[in-house]
């Protein structure tokens, strides 16, 4: 497992990396995380990034902007980004505020995300 500021990264096989954000993550400062994270993902030869939302109860506009930024940098780096373990209440609240389709895929859990085409 690799630790970066505000997140844990765990390779789970086949170029798939599980990202678990910690309480230290500040979504208002994406520049502090994006470059080191992109570098680490490249070093790990990541093909797919699974962003675990199990411990994220609310996705507000700030957090959504962070996820969108991360999805953009993943796309440029040739990495698929998949959100996993989103809670029903979080999905519900986010769907009410979203204006466009999200730029990332979503899966119910890590296993489903691993098996996505």
């Amino acid at each position: 497992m690799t630790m970066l500021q505000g997140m844990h990264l765990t390779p789970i096989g086949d170029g798939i990396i599980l990202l678990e954000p910690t309480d230290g993550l500040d979504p208002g400062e994406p520049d502090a995380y994006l470059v080191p994270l992109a570098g680490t993902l490249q070093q790990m030869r990541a093909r797919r990034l699974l962003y675990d939302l199990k411990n994220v109860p609310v996705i507000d506009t700030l957090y959504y902007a962070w996820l969108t930024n991360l999805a953009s940098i993943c796309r440029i780096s040739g990495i698929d980004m998949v959100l996993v373990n989103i809670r029903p209440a979080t999905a519900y609240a986010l769907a009410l505020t979203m204006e466009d389709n999200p730029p990332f895929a979503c899966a119910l859990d890590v296993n489903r995300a691993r098996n996505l085409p």
Partner: protein
Amino acid sequence: MVRNAKSKKSTNQLLIEQMMTKVATISQDIEKRGQSIFGQGNLLTLDEINDYSLEFLELFVLLLQAGEKVDRRSSEHKALRQFFSNFSQQIQIRGGNLEEFVRFIHFMQDVFLNNLETDSTLDFQQTREILLLLASVFNDIILDVFHVYLAEKERTIQAQQEELKHTSTPITEIWDGVLTLPIIGTLDSSRTMSVMENMLARIEKDRAKVVVIDVTGVQAIDSQVSHHLIQMIRAVGLMGAKAILTGIRPEIARAITSLNIDLSMVSTRATLSEGLKEAFALLSITVLAADVQHH
């Protein structure tokens, strides 16, 4: 002499004295009327009617004895009002009629008024004060009964609305990992909220991969309804499931195009059965007739 002595007494005392002289008749009259109203429809048993009549008289006397004037904030006044609230609630629960109940309260008041008529010892002023006192107490009681009735009705309507919400959008797991959600009627914000909440919880619980949302039963679609549908489809996607919209009738399709609503990112099928076929295809499931399987 008697008149002088009576004039010094408060209205409450005068009324108590009047009641005491004829308490048996008053009680009998009220019970008899109660039996004719509540006994015939089996709303109350004879014992219950007698108990209620006696309790009413007791509480009324206690109220009159509490002071020289009736105090609306006194515990005795509250007790009497509470008694009628409970009484009317019980009648309602047993299917009784508010109108009959209010008539019964009026009858109780009439019993006292009739008593006044027969009492020649009271002067005009005293009779007037007793009349005002009775009117004030019984008006409060009728208002309370009416409030209880309205509150009960409101509770019933709310419960029916809740039930309707659940029954009008049944979410069914029609196949492993496939949920169907038929929507009937209109989709307003409150209904969307409840449908979305239930649907997302079911996706998590049943580990659904596909949700078929069928709008065959939606009579009309406007920009708000379509916005709610899109929100619903997005929420399904965020849970990692795929949404398929089915049953878009020609009129609805026309409305969607005139409203310039973009459903390009939504997978749509004409009928629920087509939607199910699409769901099976997404899950790589092939349904074959038994004889085809044999061959």
